[in-house]
């Protein structure tokens, strides 16, 4: 009989824990009336359209940015990586509201400079917002994949006469496909589960129906609809599973010098993305702040946010490592790893309520920090697993064998051979979970210890009440804290490349 891979010992219980909330959803949905009127198909089509367009848009923005910040002498690239990842810490509803308030007749832009701008709404508006606040998923995952790419292949292709642009498209991108796909899945699942953006943009998606039911105390119906939404989640996961590439030996990192013009254009492009995703909401809320003044903001909120996000990020990476190894060990491990993605596609308030029911079974843990962190880990595990897996798949066991053969202990082999190869994936995983926890709201509201306030809960308080100006301060704090955290993480990213 074949021996059970070691990583399964950790992967199976994690998969069980991740599936528990979904089991609770099934239990909650029992007895729900499944008839939802005649609009289900229209709403499902809307949801699919928004998801598809958001994925395409995010890839189109993120992949070029990932290439220039990873593989070229792009000036200030570390700072740019931190800035370009920051939109992940901004709740998309803030961005949606800022765009809604800034553009269109009578919007802030028109009333300030008299320039009429088109109204941002509908499918276009929702897609724009989703792209701006999810592209960092693809950006960070693609960067991690590019860092593990062997530049010798590109050089070989160019020696054989392929121009650089063609080499990028035909040689580099297909090899980064794992990372791009891992990021794209997260964009798709985030879009499927987001409520506020389509709502603000006046676009009817599945989550809107779920929220309406939830707020009308129709928990059974909300759970049932969430399970229906899961079929779309499974569809996305099946699609991604088809994008697999061969494992390759790691090698020298690709490094391209930029000409002055390309450098300037790239800087401008990065600037425009940052300006739209981060500058615009800060500007709009800053305007409102000037009108209303600051009330009741405390630095403690920022500390709480960073504290919870750090714990969750570290925990998620620790749990993700065995899962990522299990995924390469066999189909059971692969299923365990896939299972972690399911919960990410379900609206936060529904999964949060399922976790409340779960937490109530453990009254000692209910409304404690420990349960909140566990909830974050369960919810954001796919963010970590995807990035870690993209890099663990690159670790060639023959290299470890060679190190051991040369007299290295297992610990030394891990530290000096495996770790440097998976480090970019771990950094990306930590960053993704950290940023996502910073902006997480529904589960935080439901599960946090009583009295524990974060930047996101403070933002919710002022936003819900219509005091948008006061959102400027926590939004700025979110960006500062995330930017700093990212810079720290990136400095830990070892530049193992031998540049030629």
């Amino acid at each position, binding site marked *: 009989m074949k021996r059970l891979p070691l990583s399964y010992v950790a992967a199976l219980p994690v998969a069980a824990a991740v599936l528990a909330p979904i089991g609770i959803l099934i239990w909650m949905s029992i007895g729900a009336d499944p008839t*939802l*009127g005649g*609009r289900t198909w229209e709403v499902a089509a809307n949801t699919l359209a928004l998801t598809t367009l958001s994925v395409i848009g995010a890839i189109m923005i993120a992949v070029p940015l990932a290439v220039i910040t990873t593989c070229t002498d792009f000036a200030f690239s570390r700072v740019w990586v931190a800035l370009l990842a920051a939109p992940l810490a901004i709740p998309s509803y803030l961005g949606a509201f800022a765009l*809604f*308030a800034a553009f*269109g*007749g*009578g*919007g802030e832009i028109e009333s300030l400079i008299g320039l009429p701008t088109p109204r941002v709404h509908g499918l276009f508006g929702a897609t724009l917002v989703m792209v701006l606040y999810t592209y960092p998923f693809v950006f960070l995952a693609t960067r991690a994949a590019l860092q593990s790419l062997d530049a010798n292949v590109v050089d070989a292709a160019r020696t054989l006469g392929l121009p650089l642009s063609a080499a990028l498209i035909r040689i580099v991108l297909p090899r980064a496909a794992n990372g791009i796909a891992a990021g794209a899945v997260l964009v798709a699942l985030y879009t499927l589960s987001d409520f*506020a953006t389509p*709502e*603000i*943009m*006046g676009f009817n998606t599945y989550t*809107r*129906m779920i*929220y*309406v*039911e*939830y*707020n*009308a*105390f*129709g*928990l059974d119906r909300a759970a049932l609809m969430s399970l229906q939404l899961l079929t779309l989640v499974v569809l996305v996961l099946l699609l991604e599973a088809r994008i697999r590439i061969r494992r390759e030996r790691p090698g020298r990192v690709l490094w391209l010098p930029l000409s002055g013009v390309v450098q300037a254009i790239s800087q401008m492009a990065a600037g425009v993305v940052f300006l739209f995703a981060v500058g615009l909401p800060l500007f709009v809320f800053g305007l*409102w702040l000037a*009108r*209303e003044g600051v*009330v*009741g903001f405390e630095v403690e909120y920022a500390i709480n946010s960073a504290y919870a996000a750090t714990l969750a990020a570290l925990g998620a990476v620790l749990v993700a490592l065995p899962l990522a190894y299990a995924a390469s060990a066999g189909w059971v491990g692969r299923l365990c790893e896939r299972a972690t993605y399911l919960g990410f596609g379900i609206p936060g*308030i529904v999964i*949060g*309520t399922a976790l*409340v*029911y779960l937490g*109530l*079974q453990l*009254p000692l843990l*209910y*409304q404690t920090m420990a349960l909140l962190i566990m909830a974050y880990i369960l919810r954001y595990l796919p963010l970590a697993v995807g990035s870690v897996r993209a890099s663990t798949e690159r670790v060639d066991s023959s290299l470890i064998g060679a190190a051991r053969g040369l007299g290295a202990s297992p610990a030394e082999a891990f530290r000096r051979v495996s770790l440097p190869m998976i480090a970019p994936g771990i950094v990306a995983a930590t960053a993704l979970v950290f940023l996502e926890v910073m902006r997480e709201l*529904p589960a935080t*509201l*439901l599960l946090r210890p*009583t*009295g524990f306030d974060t930047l996101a*809960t403070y933002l919710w*308080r*002022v936003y*819900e*009440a*219509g*005091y948008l*100006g*006061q959102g400027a301060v926590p939004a700025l704090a979110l960006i500062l804290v995330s930017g700093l955290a990212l810079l720290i993480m990136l400095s830990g990213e070892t530049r193992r490349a031998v540049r030629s």
Partner: protein
Amino acid sequence: MTSRRHILKIAAALGLLGSMPALAAIEEAAKQARSADDLPKLSGPLTVYLGRGEGGLYDDIVKAIEKRNPDLDLQVRRAPSAALANTLIAEAKAGVSRADLFWSIDASSLGAVASQGNSRPVPKDVSARIRPAFRYDQWAAISGRLRTVPFNPDRISRDQIPAHIMDFAHTDLKIGWAPAYGAFQSFVTAMRLLEGEDRTREWLTGVARQARSYAGELGVVMAVARGEVDLGFANHYYTLRLKQGKPDATVDIALTNNDAGSLVNSSGVLLLNDNPLAVDFLRYLLSREVQSYLAREAYEIPMVSGVAPPDGLPPGIHPPDVDLTRLADLQPTLDLMRETRVL
């Protein structure tokens, strides 16, 4: 902030809300609105579930109460009212009890929790201080939210606006609404209770033809001010708050007469156990200081007589007679809204 009101203004304002003669109202006020100075000191542990927070305004109240009562060990848990109601229902099912008191911004959340049978009745001496039209056995009304018709005076004049909510279905005005928003659904529920399902269905169908949907009612009010629509349906305070930040915003408030369009919904408190501290905390929320703060800063309508309503409300508030607890019955409303493709 604007200057404080004087007795005449109080009397005038009270005349709008009740039918009492002005002078009697003032006498009544002296009897009913107690100062926080006269209330018992609070001490000991108390956990409050607070639905929403009005951007920190409710926190200021909580802080002021804590400052007055240094021995009070107060824990506040904030989340959307519906989420807390769902949490309280889950806790009740699991036999776990963490909160002494639920302070919700809408009556339907209170009704949903109360229907689980885990609440305690409001003591008679407390409910006696609340306006008679808003006295309920199961929960105590704290502050009112009025349904209004915000309109853009550059696009239409006040007399073009129908006086009755049902007539909006037969106009060609461009209307903004927020069907997914809880307060709107409560309003449609009130219409269903007052006018019946058939007339509500006709109304939804009629208005939907000329309506544009927004995410929330702040969005509706902003759209009215920007001239995207002629008028909208929204809770009163969104207009007042928008004008606080932007005094020259082109939006005014109109009211309908004695129908669902002028519903006064209420925030309120549900007592979840026999902790006497919870009742005393509730007394503070009904004190003159807290009530006038809510009116002044949050633009909410006080529920205790003798406290001036917020500035900026038009005269002639005639709310319909609806049992607010019944607004928790949202499912038939959602069915109607789906059937008419409003949701």
